[in-house]
């Protein structure tokens, strides 16, 4: 019935669903994320049965809500639904000490939706300068990860930092780099 659906992007699949209205297409789309959804459930709920239940609830919500709204970024939308469901569950159980705020509930899948359009050479110069502004640990991990293409485990062995620290240094280092880059570009204009 649907040939080569594996080859088409989420966006195209979603577009076809909105055009043709066939729920089968939603099934294909959702099955691409079953494993990720179960993983998110496991991360927050720490229980197999509850994580499975979370996936079922997310499926149900998507099947009910997607026909009503025009969703542009399916992956981000799905992640938001899954994370919110888990956080609500934790809150209901009293495991979440702080109140759910808008920032927590609006989970963005992509850490930066911004596109960088700038001269390549210029960007490289700014980037090299920006790296020097990072804290030593972040700089070290960023260089090992992005420049030397090392895995987390290799960086752990190389630096002696814990896995959690390595991940945090790379994530925060990347975020800081982008802030510095943005500042430099605005300053040049």
């Amino acid at each position: 019935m649907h040939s080569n659906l594996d080859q088409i992007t989420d966006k195209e699949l979603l577009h076809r669903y909105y055009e043709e209205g066939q729920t089968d297409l939603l099934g294909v789309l959702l099955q691409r994320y079953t494993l990720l959804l179960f993983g998110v459930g496991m991360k927050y709920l720490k229980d197999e049965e509850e994580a499975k239940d979370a996936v079922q609830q997310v499926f149900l919500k998507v099947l009910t809500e997607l026909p009503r709204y025009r969703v542009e970024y399916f992956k981000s939308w799905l992640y938001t639904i899954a994370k919110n469901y888990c956080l609500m569950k934790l809150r209901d159980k009293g495991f979440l000490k702080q109140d759910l705020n808008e920032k927590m509930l609006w989970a963005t899948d992509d850490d930066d939706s911004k596109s960088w359009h700038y001269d390549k050479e210029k960007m490289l110069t700014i980037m090299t300068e920006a790296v020097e502004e990072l804290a030593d640990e972040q700089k070290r991990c960023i260089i090992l990860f992005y420049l030397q293409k090392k895995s987390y485990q290799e960086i752990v062995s190389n630096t002696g930092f814990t896995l959690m620290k390595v991940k945090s240094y790379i994530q925060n280092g990347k975020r800081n780099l982008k802030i510095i880059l943005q500042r430099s570009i605005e300053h040049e204009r």
Partner: protein
Amino acid sequence: MNDKWLDILQKSGHISEQKLMDYLQGKLSPEESHDVEKLMIDSGFINDAVEGLSEMKDKQKIATILQDLNGQLTKKIHPKSRKNSLIIPDQLTLAVATTVTVLLLIIIAYVIYRMYHSS
């Protein structure tokens, strides 16, 4: 200057189930692991999922759970067709039922005819 710096600004793509499972089971080379970890850095969804799945002690069980969840999804999508398949007989069943009914009617008619004539 090194072009690799610009990788920081590149957006990463999707990850296949197989790749993710191989990563969780430690089957990937350091280079391949790096590629998965780059996706994790760029996507909160993938990062959360990997952290959650890493907590499963029996990684083999994940495949069974996945199959089960996808099966449930199919049932949610096709509830009517399943119900219909139980109610509406297929053509072969219909043909057999019709033949049996016709044969029964012939037998009953014959028995009535014999009873009528014998009396």
